[in-house]
């Protein structure tokens, strides 16, 4: 196991370098000039721009700029905002708590409702309940998150008055419920469908027949034998989904006016604030890689057939 972890960590290095390089290239090598964008439509002083670029190291060749960025990362430096001179890591740490809370709540909803509905549907595959759950989840997947966001906002906040239409205080869990419901809707639907498939497949496995032949109660056969097997692929999906939820926050945070990572990156994008964008995306890549590794290790715990050499 220890050796496997080391190997996986080593494998992550080229992936991390590759992914950050891609983002770096996407931000800086494509047309568009972040420094010039600072001036917007106003008249531009070329000398000032050149000086600023030299100061920021933006006059260096792209590979050199990237190298500097990587070296900075090694020391925990995610870059510095061009306009304000604020370290990007500051931007991340101040925006992170709200996003983490929102993501955690959305994750909870996904797990409880997604797995719950999936199990119900899987156990009654082909029945009325199953068909209804399938249809509802299909709707959740089809209706884009921003549409669901506005529908919920109008219905739950404006019409019913159960929640505030926007989040005033991101430390208040109660205010985050509505955005978390919106954020989780897509994941919830996927998790429910995956769980359903997995449960339905395992339900007809030979070992379930054995469980019945052993005279186990239906409840025990399902909760011990069926669940332990069915949830393996679901756990894998849930792990990777944490990353998706964080990235998906960009839309949800916009609708509900949450000052989180998503809003920060959106703002940075609109101003072409390259350093912030690259810094935040780098952070998300890190989260993704760490979560993927953890899921792989968890997989080995859940499924004894997997052995890591």
């Amino acid at each position, binding site marked *: 196991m220890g050796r496997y972890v080391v190997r996986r960590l080593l494998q992550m290095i080229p992936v991390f370098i590759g992914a950050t390089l891609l983002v770096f290239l996407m931000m800086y090598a494509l047309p568009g000039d972040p420094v010039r964008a600072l001036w917007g439509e106003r008249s531009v002083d070329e000398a000032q721009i050149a000086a600023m670029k030299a100061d920021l190291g933006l006059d260096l060749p792209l590979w050199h700029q990237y190298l500097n960025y990587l070296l900075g990362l090694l020391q925990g430096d995610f870059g510095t905002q061009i306009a304000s001179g604020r370290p990007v890591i500051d931007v991340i740490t101040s925006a992170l708590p709200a996003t983490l809370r929102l993501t955690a709540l959305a994750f909870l909803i996904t797990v409880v409702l997604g797995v719950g509905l999936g199990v119900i549907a899987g156990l009654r595959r082909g029945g009325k309940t199953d068909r209804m759950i399938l249809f509802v989840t299909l709707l959740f997947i089809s209706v884009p998150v921003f549409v669901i966001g506005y529908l919920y906002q109008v219905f739950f906040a404006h019409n019913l008055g159960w929640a505030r239409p926007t989040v005033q205080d991101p430390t208040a869990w109660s205010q985050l419920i509505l955005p978390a419901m919106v954020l989780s809707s897509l994941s919830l639907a996927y998790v429910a469908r995956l769980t359903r498939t997995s449960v339905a497949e395992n339900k*007809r*496995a*030979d*070992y379930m*027949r*054995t*469980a*019945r*032949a*052993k*005279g*186990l*109660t239906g409840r*025990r056969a399902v909760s*011990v*034998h069926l669940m*332990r*097997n069915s949830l*393996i692929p679901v756990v894998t999906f849930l792990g990777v989904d944490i990353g998706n939820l964080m990235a998906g926050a960009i839309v949800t945070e916009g609708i509900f006016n949450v000052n989180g990572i998503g809003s920060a990156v959106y703002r940075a994008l609109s101003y072409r604030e390259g350093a912030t964008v690259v810094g935040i995306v780098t952070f998300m890549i890190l989260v993704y890689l760490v979560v993927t590794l953890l899921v792989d290790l968890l997989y080995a715990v*859940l*499924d*004894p*057939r997997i052995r890591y050499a």
Partner: protein
Amino acid sequence: MSDRTERPTADEPNATTGTTGPVETTSSGAVRIDKSAEAPADRDTPLLEVRDLQVEFRTREGVARAVNGVNYSVNAGETLAVLGESGSGKSVTAQAIMGILDTPPGHIAGGEIRFRGEDLLTLSEDKRRAIRGDRIAMIFQDALSSLNPVLSVGYQLGEMFRVHRGASRREARERAVDLMERVRIPAARERVNDYPHQFSGGMRQRIMIAMALALEPDLIIADEPTTALDVTVQAQVMELLAELQREFHMGLILITHDLGVVADVADRIAVMYAGRIVETAPVKELYAAPAHPYTKGLLESIPRLDHKGKELYAIQGLPPSLTALPSGCSFHPRCPLSTERSTTERPPLHPVLDASEAPVAGRGSACHYWKETLHG
């Protein structure tokens, strides 16, 4: 549904020892007192008696009649081999006895399954569950897929004691080790926490046997217990099973398609074809002189050393579709003896008579021309 009348009627000779004269060929004389004392019914009642069992499967192509009036019985300490190709209904019958039929699509359309005289089909699900695994246990063919891949074998064995006996976790684990030792798994104590995939095929099947034996049931149904194993391992596993059966004086229903497996261990054989029993006989007599063309065909299709160089016999055609069974005798499209009568009139299970016209104990054949088959 319309051909309901085809079902065997009550006056047919039954493929049970009870009605056509008991076949007292129990392989072991050692009757365990405690077991027989438990029996609520009198000594003449067979341990298990299946009467006119019918099982149907609703499929998209129509109703598949997998079991069409099967009768058999097993006594304590006796081994009944149920022989047939896949689709003959032998496993479905077993699942119906265990109460683990997949419903839907399957359902029991009629008949009785009497265990110690009590019809299991009339019991509540709770009562049936209490019998399953405890009094009647089953061994499946493919131990790898039949054992739960993510639970240790110790857990799966111990579960029997925890569920049926309310044993503690630790106690259950101890009993699991005992069981593994009993089926001669080396280093049982060290291996009790291992998972099924860490054992060899033969060892896994031993674990399945241990699981079935856990609560010392009265009856074990073994569904092709050795089919998935290497030939050398097959013999060992079969021996172990037979030995344990003698030791506990259990009834054993051995389901197989392999005539070779049957010969050494079974007392009696019931041959199934298309959901019916076509011949039943004590094992030696069946081998010596089959009374049904299907059995005869099966025996002749076994390669034999003294027939070396000759062409191997093969039964013509394919087993019938269970959604559209042939009229009359289900075997008639493949039968060399088939006549006009075979296509219209379904043969009941005739008692097989010896030269002096006296019924041979425990023998029956569902063929109009059993005499010709027997002597031809």
